[in-house]
């Protein structure tokens, strides 16, 4: 017999007493406990995120902030451009320029627009040379068609006089040949003929 055995035997009475009486603790059912549990179950079933740790929706907030920033930036750009547009001369209403039509900027009409620009350039050059504005220029059919595409009034080009040194050889020629010859003369001025350069896009826009 080990020395601990009398102590175990002695304590076994304590253990037996608690084992017997542990089931005799008086208990009464309280409906409030079930109501609280049912409410917790309803909350967990209806909104599972309520039981989890609350995490702020930083992604949504980031979208809001970026959206507001872009709006503010575009607004600032518009405000900055407004006085420039007001002070700039109306290029499209200049004498000799065709009315601007935004539909011409489409890719399918780019070729036609380029051709029209060449005609405009030639006409502007003729104006710069102080040619009489009453000289009628007969345009080729496809040029007329291009002009009629615009919804504004057609620009009447000045007719050419026979004694004019610059365009004297064009009196009986069609506008096609005149254009081709003037293109050769103005080949040095490529910058005037080349299509408008594309606006350089920022890498982050």
């Amino acid at each position: 017999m080990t020395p601990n055995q009398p102590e175990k035997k002695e304590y076994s009475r304590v253990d037996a007493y608690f084992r017997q009486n542990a089931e005799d603790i008086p208990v009464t059912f309280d409906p409030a406990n079930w109501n609280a549990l049912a409410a917790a179950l309803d909350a967990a079933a209806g909104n599972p995120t309520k039981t989890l740790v609350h995490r702020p929706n930083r992604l949504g907030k980031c979208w809001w902030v970026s959206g507001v920033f872009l709006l503010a930036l575009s607004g600032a750009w518009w405000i900055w451009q407004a006085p420039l547009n007001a002070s700039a001369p109306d290029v499209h209403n200049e004498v000799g320029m065709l009315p601007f039509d935004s539909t011409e900027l489409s890719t399918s009409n780019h070729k036609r627009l380029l051709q029209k620009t060449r005609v405009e350039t030639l006409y502007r050059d003729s104006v710069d040379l102080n040619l009489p504005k009453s000289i009628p220029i007969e345009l080729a059919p496809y040029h007329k068609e291009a002009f009629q595409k615009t919804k504004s009034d057609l620009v009447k080009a000045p007719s050419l006089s026979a004694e004019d040194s610059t365009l004297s050889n064009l009196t009986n020629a069609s506008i096609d040949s005149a254009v081709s010859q003037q293109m050769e003369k103005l080949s040095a001025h490529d910058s005037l003929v080349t299509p408008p350069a594309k606006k350089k896009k920022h890498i982050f826009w």
Partner: protein
Amino acid sequence: MTAIPESILEGCRKKERRAQEQLYRHCYAPFLRLCLRYAECPADAADILNKAFFNILTKFDQFREEGNVLGWMKRIVIHAAVDYVRANRRFRYHSPMEVATDLPGASTADATLLENDLLALLRELPFTSSAVFNLFVVEGYSHREVGELLGISEANSKWHLHHARKLLQHKLQQTAAL
């Protein structure tokens, strides 16, 4: 505790509120008695029971051991009670029983009532000693399991059991309950 009817178990698997209430009522008394032995007061015991039942009812479909559902539920309740003990054992006021019985304000009738109350005896023990005594003596856990549950060593569990037994025996001998 009587066996739980299969209709209640099937309803709980389908998360039917009526079956859940029947299961709660069926197991309320034995599980609340278990919680009362660990808790400081009846309100805390009800909280422990509700936390345990919340886990039971929300994870009821995960139970696969057919026929041992009561043991599975009891294990969850005991774990909830142990969580309560581990969270609150540092905040329990403890006065030695010898000093408590000698308080001048305690009347003889009140002292007799408390001494005969098993819960009062357990609540006068230190929190960890009371929990070790309950787990080892009443629930039947080994010292190794008690140590793992409470986060103490096996030797420490043995010391707490010895301390609890000594205090309880002294108290019971004083009241001549044994």
